[in-house]
């Protein structure tokens, strides 16, 4: 194995880590604030990819499509929170089961609407040519995906750490009842976090499309990865989602490249270790 292999695998890992961050940052915030894993989050990602496919097939501009598809998924997230989860608030087991049911429904609808064949999403024209640096060819699109994920991370950091709304969300993660007790409208924060999380997942689906394709089962492939990220990083922690996403990106890519038979072992072993020794995750405060 030569340099080229390591460099390309590293780049693939960080690009995939970026996609995972778009998926799991929202998943983690929802988990931290509402105390439930939104098991429809993988389906949101897949739906974003399918929306993207259809809009691109109609000749939409790639970046605009990513935004529109993301917002479409975001509206669906609001609907799930407002009209379904809120009806059974306080019943966390019920809520988790409902999100699982919703993910099945979305998967079935996708199968009906987009058939069972994989649908490739074309990357933007300008980014299809590899970038040549020092004689090595780098996949330009993946670099751009990484940059977008980093920009999203900075934006989320600013929102969470430098605004009053972000402080309110963190207060809710720390002690939800007391957050309500000081007048924070926690249920509006639920809606906001759901909008934000599902939109990011939808955008992630579109951006991931040219790398992963849209296909039935994309949801079920992505959701466990988001779960691992949150277990590693800790629910409700943005830093945890960031570190966890790139860690999983590396483990997943190099696991598949170097030891395909052990890829899942490589992925789940650190998760089990963290669960046993650090049940709140590396940066989390919420006991899962």
């Amino acid at each position, binding site marked *: 194995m030569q340099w080229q292999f390591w460099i390309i695998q590293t780049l693939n890992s960080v690009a995939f880590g970026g996609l995972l961050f778009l998926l799991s940052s929202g998943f983690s915030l929802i988990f931290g604030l509402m105390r439930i894993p939104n098991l429809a989050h993988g389906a949101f990602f897949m739906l974003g990819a399918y929306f993207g496919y259809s809009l691109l097939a109609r000749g939409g501009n790639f970046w605009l499509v990513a935004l529109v598809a993301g917002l479409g998924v975001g509206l669906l997230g609001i609907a799930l929170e407002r009209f379904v989860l809120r009806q059974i608030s306080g019943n966390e087991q019920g809520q988790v089961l409902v999100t699982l049911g919703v993910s099945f429904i979305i998967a079935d609808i996708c199968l009906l609407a987009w058939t069972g064949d994989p649908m490739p999403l074309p990357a933007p024209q300008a980014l299809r040519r590899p970038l040549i640096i020092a004689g090595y060819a780098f996949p330009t699109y993946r670099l751009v995906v990484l940059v977008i994920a980093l920009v999203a991370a900075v934006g989320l950091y600013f929102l969470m750490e430098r605004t009053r709304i972000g402080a309110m969300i963190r207060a809710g993660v*720390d002690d939800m009842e007391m957050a*309500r*007790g000081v*007048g*924070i409208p*926690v249920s509006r924060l639920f809606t906001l976090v759901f909008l934000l999380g599902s939109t990011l997942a939808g955008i992630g689906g579109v951006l991931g499309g040219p790398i992963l394709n849209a296909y039935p089962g994309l949801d079920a492939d992505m959701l466990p990865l988001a779960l691992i990220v949150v277990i590693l990083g800790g629910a409700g922690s943005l830093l945890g989602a960031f570190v966890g996403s790139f860690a999983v990106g590396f483990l997943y890519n190099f696991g598949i490249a170097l030891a395909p038979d052990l890829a899942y072992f490589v992925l789940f072993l650190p998760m089990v270790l963290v669960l046993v020794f650090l049940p709140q995750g590396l940066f989390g405060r919420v006991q899962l």
Partner: protein
Amino acid sequence: MTNFATDALDIAGIDAFYGDSHVLHGVSFTLRPGRLLGLLGRNGAGKTTCMNTIMGFLKPKQGSISLFGEQVGGLAPDTIARKGICLVPQGRRMFRSLTVRENLMVAAQRARGPSGGPGWTMDRVFDLFPRLKERHAQVAGSLSGGEQQMLAIGRALMGNPRVLLMDEPSEGLAPQIVAEVGRIIAQLKAEGQSIVLVEQNIKLALELADDVAIINTGVVVHKGDAKAIKLDDAIVSQHLGVF
């Protein structure tokens, strides 16, 4: 008993449960504007449960809670807080990962009600607690117990309370900090703040209170004037003494 002037807080016939366990049985008491009501009772008597029910953390099964004549029983806690009931909870319950400044910021509510007054702002809270100002950028989880208690009081004041609920603000504090907390409460009362004070420190409570309600296993067993109770050893030893 209702006076002509509206009561600041009127609790009437409250029944509250944790699951199946019936904790409050027809609890009633009244806080008049600008006064301090001491709510006393032994460990496990139901004092915190009263606070939690008034705050909306626990929904009363029976009875009514009114704030300056407005029914607030059964509302959501954030609505109740925005209407002007602010709690200094037992155990302080800071937002541990937020800084001191953020803890105050998230709890800020506009001043309300006709009485006006200057209203509480972060600057005024920092004037009241200079220690908090020094530590404004520190995360709350790293503060000492006394500092956390001051932050809990400051956070409640940021809500510009019409009624301030304080649940054992002296618990677990060193004597000179207890004295400081006592001075602060006296100062708030002097400014006209209506307060319900839950305390195990009977001496402190009877010094500060105008009126007293004593609760025992979820039932109000005595109501009266604080001065009268101070002089009545029988009541103190019967309902509050340690056996």
